[in-house]
């Protein structure tokens, strides 16, 4: 385990003008191509370990040299202002970026020690291991049952109908949705409320038994009560899954995650224990962001 201590650049920035901050301008600050992340990027038992990830959308350099570990059975929150690249980074982790034309990923992303961008890696199998939940609830135009059963069916996880029933029930229970929908499994998934739909999508993701679940602002389209349900759920899921969550809400990050990573203009600025990040940010940009000076 190499611990990359990278305070140099950060200290410089922080030391230069802590009080002369120009909150209206930090977005223009270019951190430079040799910027080094502040904080501990590596953990002891990573589910995913990334090193020097670069993402380009055509000409646009969207992710700049990000190295980060995602610990097993942990929740890691990615925060940062809009357009900072946190979603892009998340989508690298199960190669969802492949579906976007003109997107190019460089660097090393290891899942259980295998580089997922390696030619030998099968993207379908990868996504079965690294599931994803999206910002907007996107249930299929099918019944609730079929929504959950979809993944297990295509992957051939259930040998027969009984097994499939079990998987559906288990997933819905884990997602805390079973009691609400058990009487209407044949109703269309699109007929549920927003919060229920999102939990349905989570249930759908975990029905495939992934190792890692990526969540891209899963609660941003939901009301506070539904959000609270989702947050509870994330906390419960941590037992079985590794979760990476992108969120705009710092409170949410503080509530659900163990580690937090702060992104800024494609750079991973700072990463650390959630409590540390929120109570004692080490980089000035992180501090500005969490204290609400911009973003």
């Amino acid at each position, binding site marked *: 385990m190499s611990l990359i201590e990278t305070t140099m650049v950060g200290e410089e920035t922080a030391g230069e003008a802590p009080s002369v901050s120009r909150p209206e301008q930090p977005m223009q600050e270019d951190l430079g191509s040799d910027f080094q992340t502040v904080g501990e990027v590596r953990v002891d038992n990573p589910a995913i370990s990334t090193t020097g990830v670069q993402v380009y959308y055509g000409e646009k350099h969207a992710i700049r040299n990000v190295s980060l570990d995602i610990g097993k059975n942990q929740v890691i929150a990615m925060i940062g202002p809009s357009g900072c690249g946190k979603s892009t980074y998340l989508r690298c982790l199960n190669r969802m970026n492949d579906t976007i034309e003109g997107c190019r990923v460089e660097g090393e992303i290891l899942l259980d020690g295998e580089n997922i961008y390696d030619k030998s890696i099968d993207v379908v199998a990868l996504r079965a291991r690294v599931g994803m939940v*999206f910002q907007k609830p996107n249930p299929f135009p099918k019944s609730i049952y079929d929504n959950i059963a979809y*993944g297990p069916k295509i992957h051939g996880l259930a040998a027969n109908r009984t097994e499939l029933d079990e998987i559906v029930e288990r997933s819905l229970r884990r997602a805390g949705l079973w009691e609400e929908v058990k009487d209407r499994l044949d109703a269309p998934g699109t007929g549920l409320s927003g919060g229920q739909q999102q939990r349905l999508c989570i249930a759908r*993701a975990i029905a495939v038994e992934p190792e890692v679940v990526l969540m891209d602002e899963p609660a941003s389209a939901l009301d506070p009560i539904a959000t609270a349900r989702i947050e509870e759920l994330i906390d419960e899921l941590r037992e079985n899954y590794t979760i990476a969550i992108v969120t705009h809400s710092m409170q949410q990050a503080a509530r659900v995650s163990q580690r937090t990573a702060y992104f800024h203009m494609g750079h991973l600025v700072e990463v650390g224990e959630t409590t540390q990040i929120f109570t004692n940010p080490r980089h000035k940009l992180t501090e500005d962001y969490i204290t609400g000076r911009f973003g």
Partner: protein
Amino acid sequence: MLPAEETGENGMQNSVILIVLLLLTALGYHLGRRRALHSVGGTQAIRHLHSLPSYYGLYVVLWAVIPALLVMLLWGLVQDTVLNELIISTLPPEMQSLPPERLGLLINDIHNLAVGNITSEAPSPAIKAAADHLRSLQAVADLARAVVVLAIATAGALFAWRAISPTMRARNRVESILKGLMVASAMVAILTTIGIVLSVLFESLRFFQKVPVTDFLFGLEWSPQIAIRSDQVGASGAFGAIPLLAGTLLISFIALVVAVPIGLMSAIYLAEYASPRLRAWAKPILEVLAGIPTVVYGFFAALTVAPFIRNLGESVGLDVSSESALAAGLVMGIMIIPFVSSLSDDVINAVPQSLRDASYGLGATQSETIRQVILPAALPGIMGGVLLAASRAIGETMIVVMAAGLSANLTINPLEAVTTVTVQIVTLLVGDQEFDSAKTLAAFALGLLLFLITLSLNIVALRIVRRYREQYE
């Protein structure tokens, strides 16, 4: 070339009126806008206006144009009648007392003379005088029309202009006029249907007086060749529509069997797999198929495909009719591929990306995503496309006229010749047979039948589509 001149003159007069009208509207627009602005004291106080200044301008324009055009149209409709009446009243009494058709011919002669066309007989002085009179009347009428139309336009504009005040709800008024126009446009569909029903209903009723409805609807034999003409006696004259319907359905079915898989798979490939370049080329090329005239397809079917199928059949020992339903169906299928593919493609593109993401995020392959997520979501739209294609197939005429033949066999063997409803309509209507026989009338009855079938089919289909929509929206 003289008549062309006449048309030109008429057209020129119209275009002059239209150009002046155009200038008037431009002026009206400008003035209306200015008055609106002035009424509140300039651009600074624009927020005191109820609507944007341009709406006031538009309001003036609509008032100028719509009444003027209506009057112009109406004038055009009555001018000739009125002029003819005037001319007739000046004709000698013995001419006036002619029966109306003859009088019409006489008027034609006068018109031809008036515009300087060659006439056959040396015109009588009375006719000559009438022609001169007509010419001068026409000149007066044209002038009067221009004056009246433009006056009405000006009056309308002035009226609207004077009504402008800051509190006038110009936007709402303009919008309700536009909305009225839209409703009128939508009503065209209903008018068309009424027109169709009326055009075929009466003749059909006359047919059903001669041939019982039940014989027509449930008869298993179609053989209009005998017992129709007054000097022919029939052994088996029959007007059973079932063989025709069966033939229509057989050919349409073959067409759909060809077009739906090819069209749908093409649409899927183009929407989901193809590079933008292939897509940009292949889609329009496929659409060319929809635009190739059916006459061309008819020849293609009859001269290239039918002999080919026949030879192919013979080489494997099958007895294939030279006008097989298969040939017509295949070619018709080719024709309707783009109906399926274009519309499916649009619908597939309209399926939200988030559904694709969700499926990929679960580790589905592209084909799994397409088959299990995108297609079900796009199904109502695709059904719409298939439905449109099916209606094309059922209603298609020229291909089957040329390739499917006329023998009304009740069969489901695609290698035999069958006939369709449309073919029979055409043959019955443009043949050499005596008119007003049950045969001609049968064409209208077939038209009505076809119309009713497609109507009920569409109502059912629309219900299905709607239920899907409600489920997934």
